[in-house]
Structures are given as structure tokens and as C-alpha cells.
């Protein structure tokens, strides 16, 4: 301590020194007391504040990629204290999504019903959450943005370049948020069809003589791989299980082929086994099969095939490829988005087969808006509650022309969600996105010219429009057709 001795007349020095000493002591005591008082008040205040504060969010977990790909995703909200029970009424999700909640210790699990939308900011709010030990309640809020989705489309180009050769067909990839038609991921002189997988693209290309070749491109780069086929012939019904790296297709031998003649014989090929050979899918007793249609169960290694006799089978390609018969039905209509419910159609009625437990539910679809005034076309089921989208062809003033439109029927309520920009345009096909959020509609312009491909012929100038089913708006379209959602 470097306190200067204070100069004072000799007589008063002891007294004033004592006084200044007392003042200093008092000052120190005051400083100390004030410090303690301030700290004590802070402790008391903070303790009270803590007692009156409800639980807070410590961390949150959600598998975002799965949330737009698979049904019933879960969000785990971990609080800083063990939580009391939470009822479904306390949970609100924006945009409105059905959700239930359960609590184990500090973890609150929010289970969404169905699949979440792409590119959407979700806000989950849980009100009146209290801990098991205190009465104070609080609101837990968590926001997350679901990922974007890739969109692929096939552009056929019939035009001829300066050298007189046909311009190549291309498969382009973009995203919902992206602009334009995106980048070329595959091109070949003639592309019949393709399927996009997580890491690969498989495409059927046609030679000058219409002989089909099946090529696999890896998005990671590297050489294209040609899947061996028995002989020259036709490849159809290309299907894929994107997350399992499997493709399936049927092969029919060309007329000039020698040896065994294949007739729409199903094959499955594992893209992760580059040197592997495609495996023929055989029917009961290992006999060759001829199939009318085939498709993978979403996110699985199981294949559904419809034999020439209209009998459907479920075959798990991973195990012993045992056939599970699913009955005889007229038509396979894909799966209800986000579920494993296969939609089948018969002349008198439609039904869904839940492949998880084999339960068959007859569809009792309410009549749509236009059933009386228009010719009904393709029907796509949107959810297990029986909402559906259907294509209609309506007569117009011009006797040679039918107008296309697509209507969605929800609980007996129908509304038109899509009509082509001009009456003369036609809808070729449409399908629903895997999460049930969008319809992808392929339209053919009036001036479209057929390209004359032997399988899946198309027209020039086709576009694919994405219709948001919730808002009914079609804000995005890409050139080309056969979006991967329809694969």
C-alpha cells in the first residue's frame, strides 16, 4: 500500500491520523458491506427468477432428410429439466401439421403425422411445459427448415444440329427452389426413360435400330456402367428404390434374338455391385415370369410385380426372394405417399393393401366434382383418408378438342387444381411427390410433335408443372417430362 504520510502540524497529527484511520476503516467496511449486500440481492433475485422460470430447451434433434422422405418423423426436444407429461393439445405446429407428444425424463418427443413439406420453415411450439419439480411453466419453441428436393426431367430433342445429326436427349436436375431447368446429369442420343437414385442415375438409351441399352451413371463421377442384358431387345418398366441402390426393369428379347426368348421378364440390379449381374426375378417354383407392371415398395428392397395373369406378388430381393401373393388386381397404382400402402384398382372398386401387415382396405372414394360433366382419367390417391387427385377430360366448344384438367377431392369436396395454360394443351400424365405435397403434371403443347420413340413416345416442347396441393398454385415448371417422382 503506497499511502503517502500526510503532513500536519505536530500537535494535531496523532488525532487526525486516528481520524483518517477511522474513516478508512469505515470506508472499507462500507465497501465490503455494499458488496455483500449487492451479491446477496443478486443471489436472492436470481434464485427467485430461477424458481419462476419453466423448463428451457437444451437441444433438439430431427433427421431432416428423413422428415421429407418417410412417414411420421420425430422431433426430440431435450429440456434442461425433467418434464411433466405433455398432451397433444399443448403442441402446435406451424404450418399446421398433426402432431402428438410424449415425454420421457428430459426428452419431449413430437411425432408428426405424415410427411413434412419440402423447403418449409416449421415452428413447433409446446405451451405450458412444466418440470416435474417446479410449478413454473414455459413455452418451448423450436424451428427447423426442411430440405429442398431434387427434381429431374427428361428433355427429348428432335432437332437436328448444323452437322445434320440429331441433338442429344438430356436428363436435367434442378431443385424446387432452383431456377430454370438445371444442369445436365446425363445425355445420350436417344433416351427412352430414366430413374434417379440417391447416388446414381439409371437410363435406358436407344440405338439407331431401337435396341435398348441400360446405363448407370454415378453422381460421384467415374465411367458409365452398362448393365448386361441377354440380347438385343426392349427394356421397359424401369423402377428404382433410391435409398437401397436397386433398380428393376423388364426385358423382352428382340425378334432376331437367338437362345432363350424373354418376354417382359423382370430383373433386379444392385448398383453398388458394379461387376454384378442383374438377377432375374422368378415366379412360383422358380419359373420364369412375364409381368405387366412392377415397382419397389418405398424405401425398401421389396418389389411388387403384377404377373401376366394379373396376380400381384411381393418379393423381398434381399432375402430368399420368397413370393408373397397379394391377390389378383387389374392395375397397380403406386403407393399412398409416405406409407407402404399399395393402391390397386379393379373394374368395380379400388383398394389399398398395407404391405406392413397385409391389411386390405376397400377405397370408398366420394364422387368428384366433374364426374358428371367430364371423362375421368388417371386417379392418384393422396392419403390414406381417401383424398385423391384425378385427371378429367372435358368437352369444349371445339368438337375436336377435349380440355384437360386435374381436380383434387378431399372429403367429398372437389376443386380444380390444374388446367393447362391454353385449352389446346393436353395433360399427358401426372403424379404426386413422395411427400404428397406436390403434383407433377406433364403437359403437351398444341404444337407438340411426336418423337416416335418405340417405347414411351413423347412430344416436343413438353413441360412439367409442379402444383402445390395445399395452396393450389403452380409456381414452378421445368422443361421436359417424366419427372423422377413419376418413376
Amino acid at each position, binding site marked *: *500500500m503506497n499511502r503517502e504520510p500526510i503532513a500536519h502540524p505536530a500537535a494535531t497529527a496523532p488525532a487526525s491520523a486516528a481520524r483518517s484511520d477511522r474513516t478508512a*476503516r469505515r470506508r472499507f467496511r462500507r465497501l*465490503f458491506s455494499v458488496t*455483500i449486500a449487492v451479491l446477496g440481492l443478486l443471489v436472492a433475485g*436470481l434464485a427467485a427468477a*430461477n*424458481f419462476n422460470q419453466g423448463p428451457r430447451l437444451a437441444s433438439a434433434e430431427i433427421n431432416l432428410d428423413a422428415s421429407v422422405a418417410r412417414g411420421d418423423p420425430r422431433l426430440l426436444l431435450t429440456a*434442461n429439466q*425433467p418434464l411433466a407429461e405433455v398432451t397433444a393439445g399443448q403442441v402446435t405446429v406451424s404450418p399446421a401439421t398433426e402432431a402428438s407428444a410424449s415425454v420421457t425424463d428430459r426428452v419431449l418427443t413430437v411425432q408428426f403425422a405424415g410427411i413434412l413439406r419440402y423447403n418449409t420453415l416449421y415452428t413447433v411450439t409446446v405451451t405450458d411445459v412444466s418440470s416435474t419439480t*417446479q410449478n413454473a411453466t414455459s413455452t418451448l419453441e423450436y424451428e427447423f427448415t426442411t430440405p429442398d428436393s431434387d427434381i429431374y426431367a427428361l428433355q427429348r430433342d428432335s432437332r437436328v444440329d448444323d452437322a445434320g445429326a440429331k441433338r442429344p436427349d438430356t436428363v436435367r436436375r434442378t431443385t424446387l427452389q432452383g431456377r430454370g431447368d438445371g444442369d445436365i446429369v446425363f445425355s445420350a442420343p436417344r433416351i427412352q426413360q430414366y430413374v434417379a437414385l440417391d447416388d446414381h442415375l439409371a437410363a435406358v438409351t436407344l440405338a439407331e435400330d431401337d435396341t435398348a441399352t441400360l446405363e448407370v451413371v454415378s453422381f460421384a463421377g467415374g465411367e458409365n456402367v452398362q448393365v448386361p442384358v441377354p440380347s438385343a431387345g426392349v427394356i421397359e418398366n424401369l423402377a428404382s428404390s433410391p435409398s437401397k441402390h436397386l433398380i428393376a426393369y423388364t426385358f423382352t428379347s428382340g425378334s432376331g434374338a437367338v437362345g432363350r426368348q424373354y418376354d417382359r421378364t423382370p430383373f433386379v440390379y444392385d448398383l453398388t455391385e458394379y461387376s454384378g449381374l442383374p438377377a432375374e426375378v422368378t415366379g412360383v417354383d422358380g419359373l420364369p415370369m412375364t409381368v405387366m407392371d412392377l415397382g419397389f415398395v418405398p424405401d425398401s428392397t421389396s418389389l411388387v410385380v403384377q404377373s401376366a395373369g394379373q396376380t400381384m406378388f411381393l418379393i423381398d430381393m434381399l432375402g430368399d426372394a420368397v413370393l408373397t401373393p397379394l391377390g389378383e388386381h387389374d392395375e397397380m397404382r403406386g403407393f399412398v405417399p409416405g406409407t407402404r400402402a399399395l393402391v390397386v384398382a379393379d373394374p368395380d372398386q379400388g383398394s389399398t393393401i398395407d404391405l406392413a401387415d397385409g391389411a386390405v382396405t376397400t377405397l370408398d372414394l366420394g364422387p368428384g366434382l366433374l364426374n358428371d360433366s367430364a371423362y375421368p382419367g388417371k386417379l392418384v390417391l393422396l392419403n390414406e383418408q381417401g383424398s385423391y387427385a384425378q385427371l378429367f377430360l372435358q368437352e369444349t366448344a371445339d368438337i375436336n378438342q377435349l380440355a384437360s384438367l386435374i381436380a383434387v377431392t378431399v372429403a367429398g369436396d372437389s376443386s380444380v387444381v390444374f388446367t393447362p395454360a391454353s385449352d389446346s394443351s393436353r395433360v399427358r400424365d401426372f403424379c404426386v411427390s413422395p411427400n404428397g405435397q406436390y403434383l407433377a403434371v406433364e403437359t403437351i403443347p398444341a404444337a407438340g410433335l411426336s418423337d416416335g420413340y418405340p417405347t414411351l413416345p413423347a412430344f416436343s416442347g413438353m413441360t412439367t408443372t409442379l402444383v402445390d396441393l395445399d395452396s393450389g398454385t403452380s409456381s414452378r415448371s421445368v422443361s421436359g417430362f417424366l419427372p423422377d417422382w413419376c418413376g
Partner: protein
Amino acid sequence: MPQDMQMSQNAAARPFTARRRPGRGLIVGLVIIGLVILLRAFAPETPAGTLTDTARDFVTLSISVVIESLPFVFLGILLSIVVQTWLPEGFLLRRLPKNPAARRVVLSLLGMLLPVCECGNVPLARGLIAKGLTVGESMTFLFAAPILNPVTIITTQQAFGWDSGILVWRIAGGFLIANLIGYIYSRHPKPEALLTPRFQDACALGDRHDAADGKIKRSADLFTKETSAMLPALFIGAGLAGLIQTAVSREVLVTLGSNPVWSVLALMALAFVVSICSNVDAFFILSFGATFMPGAIVAFLVFGPMIDIKMLALLRTTFTAKTLVQLTLIVALCSAVLGLAINYVV
């Protein structure tokens, strides 16, 4: 104590040392080490069936704390030996800034260069007072050094990582509290009154007398002293950590640990009792990390190194009882404020 008396005492001690036959201690030590190795080698190999699962886990958890902490204790002691024996005297003190506040800030960071554990720095702080630092300044060093210390920072980081924020809060808390105390006691009119009457003796003796004994001997000497001060507390602390984890029911721990207020007070009380060395207390409290709120962990990690039973016993050699009560009060309140604030905000 007069200078000549000290001399005579040293003179009295030295003949005793000299009388020891050289190598006798070495033989005794090697024999003990050999016995311990033999014991380990011939201990039963099969799992002791007599122990219940809970007892086995108690032992496993306690051993885990010891095995994890020992190398860091040794590292701390090695660094402390290097600093105390091999660095020139007054090497750092001469370069302190003149401004009192800046001096205290630098002194509170001195622990980074003088990485002695809390038990080791009491003698060091006494030495600092003897070399002319004010009492307030030496308190700043005394309370900051155990936390602002490379080994403590490394072990806290290893135990809790960067992301949890616990390390940052611990460093900030230690720094602020030490400087606050330094400031308050720099205002004390009679700093000498804070010190025990006997301090003059302890201070005057210092560690200087055996400088001539050779640095190796002094290092070995410091090693025995520091291990004797730190290891018993470490072993008790490890046993206590294992005991609490196995004997106290999960419900009690969860209920206590998830309450923002009681968790802070409980872990501060625990810190006061266990007296585990700041170098490795992060490993001790790690077992509570999953059940106790972060504010409580920080309060433990800030309060423990500054005030606990062992520190009070050591500090009692230097400071009066009244001063220690004041210090305990300030540190405890500051730690509680920090812990409660963290629990409220984070």
C-alpha cells in the same frame, strides 16, 4: 524471528540430514515399490465374487477418477517444480505494471505462467507478500491461479469440451472474482491486520534456505510435499465421487440436479467438502454432468478451487479467521450468482 535463530535452526537440521547414509532412502523406496509391484502381480485374478455390482461399480468409478486425474496431477506438479526451482527468482514480478488494477489483472493471469495447483500456490502467495506485493494483490493471484492455469484449463476442456461453455464461464468467473477480491482488499486500511501474527514467521522462513541443496534435491523435495498435500484429497474425492454415484439414488440426484437453485447450492457444498485439486476437479464433477445443470457445474468449478476445507486450512496459516470468513462469503456469493445466472440464461 531473528535471523540468527533461523540460521541456528538450519544448522541443527543439517547435521541430521548429513548423518543419513547415502542410498539408504533409495533402498527403502525401491523395496516399497517392489513390494507394491509384487502385491499387484499376485493379487487374485478372478473377479471378486463377494462384491455386489454396486460395490464393484463404486470401486470402478473411483479408480477411474484416480487413473484419469493422476497424470494431470503429476503434470501440474512437474510444471510447478520447474517454475519454482528452475526459473530465476523475481523473474516475473519485476515486470508488473504500475497501475493497481492492471497489476491485479496481470497477477490473476500469472497462474498461466506459474502453473501451481491451489495447494502449491499458498506458499507461493506468501512468498509474493514477502517480496512486496500488497495483500490484495496476492489474494488476486491466490484465487485466480488455480483456475487460470494451463493444466486446469486443459482438463476442463478434456472433460467438458469447448461447446458446453463451462470452460469459458469457469475462466471468466475465476478471473472476475479474483479481481473483485483484489480490489476490495486493496481498499483495506490496514492490510497487515488481515494476516495472522504468525505469518511473519512463516513468511520469513520461506523456501529460500535450501537453495543451496541443489535443484534436483529441491525438485524431489517439492514433489513429496505437493503429492502429500494433493493426493490424499484426490483419493478421498475419487472415493466420494464413486460413492455419490452409486449410493445416492438416481431420483435424488435428478431431482436435486435439475433444480436450477438447489443444484447450484448442492454442488457448492460438495466442492467445499471434497477439496479436490483444481487441476482435476473437472474429472470429478464430470460424473454429475449428465444430471446436474450447467450453472451448478460452473459454480462447483469456480468455488471449489478458491474455497474448500483444505484451502481454508492452508490459508489459515496466512490470514486471520475473520478475513477468511469474509473471503468465503464473497467467493460463495459470487459463485452462486454465476451459477444461478447461468442456470437462468443458458
